[in-house]
């Protein structure tokens, strides 16, 4: 069987370049065995068009740099095999982020802004713990549960697929709400639901979500985003209605030897 000739249609636009206007450009590439979109785009850039812009870093599905919409669906390009796609492939940059050029968007700026607003870092009881002492204990199961939410790679697919994000520029997205869920679950974080309510208890937070759940469908890491958002919404409703400060879940006691 002879190799397929793939037609790759790419939205080209460089806002930095005077006179540049958005247009679709087609490239024809001969498919190779095990070809990913990373390999195909590299080939186009090397052999056909050195001006084409896109972002790859790890090219192994780990770092989240290469999210773009592939035939209308946001996902990671590096681990998308061409053999799973039709002969014509349409690539466009993810919506919801500032366009840099062509397929490259500024997720970094968006994510940093979200992190600053949601204070998405662990709020420690003790800023300078004694590092020579045994670490604080944690139930193995709880550590695993926290990691399940910590697996988010901030690729931006959930934001690109989100209906609310289209309408509300400051919506924190599933990525932001998942972070709240992650720190809420972590007994090392001093914040309680009252504090979390301050961060996401509004329409740019958990009450802006319309439960369309595209985030859940497109997440490349299969994070349980729909479940987490529903859970956080319930907790925030409780916290908002009671208007009282809840105590965060306590850490476990050290085992007695």
């Amino acid at each position, binding site marked *: 069987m002879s190799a397929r000739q793939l037609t790759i249609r790419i939205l080209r636009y460089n806002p930095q370049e005077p006179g540049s206007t958005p247009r679709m450009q087609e490239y024809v590439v001969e498919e190779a065995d095990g070809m990913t979109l990373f390999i195909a785009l590299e080939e186009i*850039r090397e052999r056909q068009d050195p001006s084409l*812009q896109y972002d790859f870093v790890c090219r192994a599905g780990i770092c989240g740099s290469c999210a773009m919409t592939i035939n209308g669906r946001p996902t990671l390009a590096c681990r998308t095999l061409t053999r799973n796609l039709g002969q014509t492939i349409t690539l466009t940059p993810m919506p919801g982020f500032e366009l840099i050029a062509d397929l490259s968007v500024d997720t*970094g700026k968006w*994510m940093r802004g979200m992190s600053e607003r949601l204070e998405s870092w662990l709020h*420690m009881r003790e800023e300078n713990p004694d590092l020579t002492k045994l670490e604080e204990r944690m*139930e193995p199961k709880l550590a695993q549960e926290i990691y399940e939410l910590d697996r988010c790679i901030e690729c931006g697919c959930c934001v690109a697929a989100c209906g609310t994000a289209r309408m509300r520029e400051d919506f924190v997205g599933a990525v932001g709400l998942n972070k709240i869920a992650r720190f809420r679950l972590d007994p090392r974080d001093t914040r309680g639901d009252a504090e979390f309510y301050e961060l996401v208890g509004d329409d740019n937070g958990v009450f802006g979500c319309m439960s369309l759940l595209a985030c859940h469908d497109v997440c490349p890491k299969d994070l349980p985003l729909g479940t987490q958002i529903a859970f956080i919404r319930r907790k925030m409703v409780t916290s908002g209605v009671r208007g009282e400060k809840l105590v965060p879940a306590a850490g476990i006691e050290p085992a007695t030897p």
Partner: protein
Amino acid sequence: MKIIHTDCLVIGGGLAGLRLAIAAKRRGHDALVLSLVPPKRSHSSAAQGGMQASLGNVIKGQGDNEDVHFEDTIRGSDWGADQRVVRMFVNTAPKAVRELAAWGVPWSRVQRGDRHVIINGEKVTITERDEAHGLVAQRDFGGTRKWRTCYVSDGTGHAMLFAVSDRAIAQQIPVHERIEALSLIHDGARCYGAVARNLVTGELCAYVAKATAIATGGAGRLYRVTTNAVICEGIGAALALETGVATLGNMEAVQFHPTAIFPAGILVTEGCRGDGGLLVDVDGHRFMPDYEPEKKELASRDVVARRMEQHIRSGKSVKSRFGEHLWLDIRLLGAKHIETNLREVKEICEYFLGIDPIHQMIPVRPAQHYTMGGVRTDHTGQSPTLKGLFSAGEAACWDMHGFNRLGGNSVAETIVAGMIVGEYIADYCDAAQNEVTLPTALVRDALRRERQHLESLASGENGQEDAMALRTRMQQIMTDKVGVFRTGEALKEAVDELTQLLTRSHHIGLRYSAMGANPELVTAYRVQKMLKVALCVAQGALSRTESRGAHFREDYPRRDDVAWLSRTLASWPDANSLKPKLAWESIDIDAMELPPGWRGYGLRDHIEHPQTAQRAARVENIRKTMADASRIEIQRALMPYESLLPERYQGTNERIDDHVQTQKTAT
């Protein structure tokens, strides 16, 4: 001209760079990070397996301590490491894990009671202690005598990078993303910052700082087949090299990871073998015990990679349309284990190979993985020849890895070096004599030089060489001729060809000449830098007529302590030269805590240095006369190092066994 001032300029936003910036900021200095990509995209995130620290919480890690970690690391390095730096490292690693735990890293924890594991192909039941329950767990990795690798399920590097990056955000450390350093600003004696280019707009800008730190990671992309991310191009090393003053250490020391998936070169973690996975040939035969009866699949990476290539040469490989490979078999670990602790591996197999590792074997072959060499520094992380220039992590030759790095010591180094070197950077910024008094002419000249260089590339006035083609050829030469097995003949050819490529790179002309965002322009100026670094690797490998760690010369298969117990130093004093200048600094056996010997795996027949026996006798004598002393007192007598550590990290690390022993003494 645009100038941005800060106290500490960090080039590179991975684990090492971020941790340096946090250290400087905590001490009251401004820190600013330049990064090619959003910092959470850095290659640090790809460290799947774990971080070595001798906590000794799991039962298979019982009895572990700094001494054992130290010896494993020195043996792994094939005695190329700086033993004092290794001591600084092993003492700080447990503190680093504990600090990260406090910052929110969800380390996998010890579950008390029985569990089933695979050891040497057999199902074994081990029982974790009650008193260890809930503490940070460790797994087995190559080249270690204890289970020492702390991990976060299958995403250690990711979890670490996110926690550290979030901490940097909490401390309001600015990260200038998509900004690339093009050259260092210096006057031949002191570094004052860097000229950098905005990758989106093409704008040039000078960053002026008291201290400048290179934390740009490794140089894997000098090779065609590598596990490294596409941004790991050795540019940080080139920045230092192009000062003509700073030196690079041991660039020929390049690690090849045994289990990169074939042919894509994507890494599957050492945890596969640490957790009990086996290497198998075309006949389904487990071949590693034939070569390495002691450590088998878990010898150090250099040894396993060589044995695999050797086995492929013996005709036992699997032949595919892309070439030859072997198999990694993790089926015996079972679905549950693979789906939790090795999920990243499962995903990689599914997405890139279309196979399920629960039921199928994984095609693997060694690929370039780690750069032991880098910007040569002293124990404080500062260049001995260019004041104010610091380096940490994979970009540096600090030098704790010597000629081979142990799995799990890499992410550990990023954080530990970040902590230690960060303190020294803060000390440097504190000192009144290190204030910057910089003539703006120096900055203007540096900016003008870079602008002219970029314009000459874009205009095509020097010729029409294709930058991308030059890079591809360089990568092929490095993979073919400066790989796992090296010979004088092939290395000579490599040096000659790379020299020709360097000459040709002076005549690059672009097809797309925009001065703003332009991937071809980026390749053009980077390939000129990469070729210089590649020449340091190839020339260093050609000169070193012995085999040590990952550097293996078929024409000189023995480690030669008489001639080569030394560190290669490469510099590029003449910008117009086509070759680096090499020098060697010897490693003093009389100062060693662990004198050279057999590593415990690999070949046994090294050429011994006459001083070795004397030093070994002296070490033995000290141990004998101090038989009643504590291990810490003995260590102090053998090789004092504690005064080299920042005060904040000098303390003794607590372990659960301390308590168990105290209780035993009490009863």
